[in-house]
């Protein structure tokens, strides 16, 4: 069943972020894609240790490695962020359409009864 596999992967993801240093590494690359060396410069962690943390994060499907020229840059798995972005995009489409409808209805109602506004 895919369910068991999915749960196992999810558990690995949570475990991957459960380590404080790894969470710090992840937070750093969530802000901008970085190489192993760049992460090591920003944290009191050696390059081999950073590599190991990134490997755990990558195995958990949380980050991806991208080669740009001679640099290997790590960044969060973009699909997950994109999914959340799309979700929020839809949410505000719905919300603002409803907001517009209610605001305009109230404006019409107040325009029809201007005496109330002037009191």
């Amino acid at each position, binding site marked *: 069943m895919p369910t068991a596999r999915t749960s196992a992967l999810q558990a690995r*993801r949570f475990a991957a972020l459960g380590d404080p240093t790894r969470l710090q590494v992840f937070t750093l690359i*969530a802000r901008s894609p970085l190489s192993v060396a760049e992460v090591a410069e920003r944290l009191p962690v050696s390059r081999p240790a950073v590599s190991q943390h990134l490997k755990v994060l990558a195995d958990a499907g949380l980050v991806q490695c991208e080669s740009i020229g001679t640099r290997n840059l790590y960044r969060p798995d973009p699909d997950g962020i994109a999914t*959340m*972005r799309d979700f929020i995009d839809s949410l505000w489409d*719905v919300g603002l359409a409803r*907001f517009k409808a209610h605001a305009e209805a109230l*404006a019409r109602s107040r325009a029809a009864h201007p005496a109330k506004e002037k009191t």
Partner: protein
Amino acid sequence: MSSSSLASAARIAVRKSVTVAAPVALAFEVFTARIESWWPMASHHIGDAECTAVVIEPRPGGRWYERGVDGVECLWGQVLVWEAGRRVVLVWQLNAQWEFDPAIRTEVEVSFTAIDDRTTQVELEHRGLEAYGAEAAAMRDTFASPNGWNGMLDHFAQVTGATHARAAAG
């Protein structure tokens, strides 16, 4: 690392703009004080019980929360900037599972500009969505469930369709 430096580094955002046939003061009032008149409460609440109210306390530091029929209040975030009638910045701290999560910090900035006495331009930016990077994986699992986000997205489609249909009819 301060939260403000994190906020300034925020790059992933959703931006919306809508023109409303209502005076600017009224548009602001409906968006904030009357949020429960338009927020899709039936689908978008976090408490166990049916949601009966959404409240934005009108001051900086005020809470942004929902209240269920059981009286339980569930925090969504807080008010960062409150410029009555002009602009509001809200902190939205719901994670991908639609739960309050202090580790998640996204911002919703809404500005209200009068085009004329009866028309208002409303600009909305929901930013800092890279906060969901850490959530990405767990979220996909949630999406995969029929009661999860796919179901909600279907609901969005229905509601949006209904809204457009009403707009077209009206």
